């Protein structure tokens, strides 16, 4: 034990604290940095909604175009050609040569054009009418003679203009505006716009819709009508009619408003809803075709005339719409000259 004991102790204490500091520095230097920053969530928040919902819709009210008579169409020329014997060079001959009729339809409108999952086929009132056209050309409506393309309401006119489909049978309202781009047959179904709400809703008609969210499909006369209503509802546009129903069931809109035929199909899928109010528009439905195919228009009108006369139209109506009410007379045909 030397005299310098205490000093050595002091030095050792300093060494230890220095070593401790060094160790701490080493620890920090070698241990690396901390955990990565938490990243936020992405995507829409809140309750789920269908895709492609426009709220408010980009629809503008169409002023009523009275420049034409929507119901007037081309008169059928002479007798209807028999199946398999289409006049040479006609549009129908081209369809016959191809081997099948391509029809633009809807697969989401219950009772008119919807995919029946038990048969795996699209069925409905509009489909049966299209089948009549195929039968008139080919003799039957078997799957190799008619092909259905399910299209959205907004695709109806473009697909006719670029010949993707031959005809469109899709609860399509005849308007003078649309008649500038495509040709229509005579009226094969009379409809009018009404309102679908939950049972017990205070809405009783179009005047009760002030500030309410009202849904219809994009590119239809219905959404334009909603945009132009006096009560000023908020129009909500979707891609398919059943999307409106999903929004109604999820409580995200107040009402659906379109042709009563389409509303019949929606209400049939949900007994807690009901159709209210009067028909506040006049919506004649026609088969749409390419603008320049006059011969096809006359041919289609001829088939429709036959259906009116021989009870075919009534049979189709009874098959699909008997739940709605008694079978009426078919709408009369109006011809231009």
């Amino acid at each position: 034990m030397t005299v310098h004991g205490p000093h050595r102790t002091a030095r050792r204490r300093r060494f230890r604290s220095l070593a401790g500091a060094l160790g701490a520095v080493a620890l920090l230097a070698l241990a690396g940095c901390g955990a990565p920053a938490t990243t936020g969530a992405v995507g829409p928040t809140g309750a789920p909604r269908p895709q492609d919902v426009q709220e408010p819709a980009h629809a503008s009210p169409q002023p009523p175009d009275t420049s034409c008579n929507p119901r007037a169409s081309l008169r059928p020329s002479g007798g209807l050609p028999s199946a398999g014997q289409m006049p040479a060079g006609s549009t129908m001959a081209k369809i016959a040569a191809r081997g099948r009729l391509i029809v633009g339809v809807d697969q989401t409108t219950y009772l008119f054009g919807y995919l029946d999952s038990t048969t795996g086929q699209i069925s409905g009132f509009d489909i049966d009418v299209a089948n009549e056209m195929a039968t008139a050309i080919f003799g039957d409506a078997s799957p190799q003679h008619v092909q259905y393309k399910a299209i959205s309401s907004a695709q109806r006119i473009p697909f006719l203009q670029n010949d993707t489909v031959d005809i469109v049978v899709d609860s399509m309202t005849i308007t003078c505006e649309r008649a500038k781009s495509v040709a229509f047959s005579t009226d094969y179904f009379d409809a009018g716009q009404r309102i679908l709400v939950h049972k017990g809703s205070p809405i009783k008609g179009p005047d009760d819709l002030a500030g309410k969210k009202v849904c219809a499909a994009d590119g239809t006369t219905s959404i334009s009508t909603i945009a132009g209503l006096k009560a000023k509802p908020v129009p909500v546009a979707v891609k398919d009619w059943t999307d409106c129903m999903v929004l109604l069931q999820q409580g995200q809109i107040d009402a659906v408003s379109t042709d009563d035929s389409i509303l019949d199909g929606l209400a049939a899928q949900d007994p807690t809803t009901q159709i209210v109010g009067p028909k506040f528009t006049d919506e004649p439905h026609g088969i749409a075709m390419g603008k320049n195919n006059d011969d096809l228009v006359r041919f289609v009108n001829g088939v429709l005339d036959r259906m009116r006369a021989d009870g075919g139209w009534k049979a189709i109506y009874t098959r699909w719409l008997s739940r709605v009410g008694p079978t009426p007379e078919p709408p009369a045909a109006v011809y231009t000259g």
Partner: protein
Amino acid sequence: MSTAAPAPARPGRTSPPSPPAQRGAGNTPVAARPGGTGGTLADALRDRLRSTPGRLTAVLAVLVLLGLGAGLASVIGVESRGGAVEETATHSGPLTVQAQLLYRSMSDADATAASAYLSGGVEPAALRSRYLADIDAATKALAALGASPGGATDAVRALNAGLPGYTGLVETARVYNRQNLPLGAAYLREASGLMSTSLLPNAQKVYQAETTALDTDRDSGGGVPWLALALGVLVLVGLIGTQRYLSRHTHRTFNVGLLTATAAGVVLVLWLGLSWTLSSVNLSEGKNNGSAQVKMLSDARIAALQARADESLTLVAHGGSGDRFDVDFGRKLAALDGKGGALDDAEQNADPATLDELRAVRNDLTAWRSRHKALRDNDDNGRFPLAVQAAIGHGDASTADVSADLDKRLGRAIDDAQGTFTARAGSAGDDLTGAGVGTGILAVVLLGGTVMGIQRRVAEYR
């Protein structure tokens, strides 16, 4: 090893250094003791250092300091790197796998739900049980990820809220499909939209967060122990210098204590360097042949699943807006086996077994492409039921068969790569474990040897 008595007649050399009166040189005798009051501390130190024992004690102090520093730095450093490596094997590595599993299960659930819809009415039992297994796997993966701190907590929360919502929509769709009402298809479309706009992007975020955590842990584990190495080298330099000084002044070439300390120091530095080299080799192999491989193969698997969903959704759309799904289908398959695609990347570091699987995957893709062409031809030309049969049935024209085979092979390759990762992480951890204990012991030996060796010399001055 000591020779004769300490060499005499060195100027300035005294026996007990403490009595201040015996200090040599022309300074005034210093009355104050070393470490005394201010102003004289520097003088005291200077005087102290003039004497050999003083110098030796100072050298001892410095060497002890450096030795302690080197020892602490190496032990603490090895412990922390070992901890980070263990994190990769037990925590961030498995969580990355869970994140991929989550993404994959949800993608598969979406594809299966679309196929089930095509079957119409009541879906086949096989599709239903596959869907349920996917939801189960996704829920379990989500639970494992939720328990991990520091992940993408907001994204996990959104997934926890959204996944039950998704399953609710799918069940609603089933109910309506059973009643043959088209409302079912609307709920299925809504479910699919929720999956692609919210659930899958959030799962992607979670995956990115876990990958970042894995990379951070790997970098920590493989970091160079600069401080410990530097201090170790400094200690060695100091020890060698001290031994040279001593051997010159004491004419005794070897000092047992200091030699032992030097040997311990050399072994410590070498061991530190070796353990770092081995562990970082293992870590980088664990990355190249392990976790990076898993990522590329998982990306390939998910692209295949999304292509499958696209194929079904094109058919569900039934001609209207199905084009964009078919375009995406082509894009997804090209991302798989095109030039520089996921398969090319995965083949770079694949072992022979995986290469075989990947070759079979390429064959599957070729078969899928040609069967898909036939399917599209049927759908576009009005033979819809044949197209659906090819998409969900079995047989020579079935795309379901070939895409299921592809999925299974990629799954096996992923399991292989994950096994490689776990093995390599384990090896890296082992490399470091020994080093922690070993360098600690060596540091103690080094300190002990230094103290002993120098104290011996200093004691000779008493």
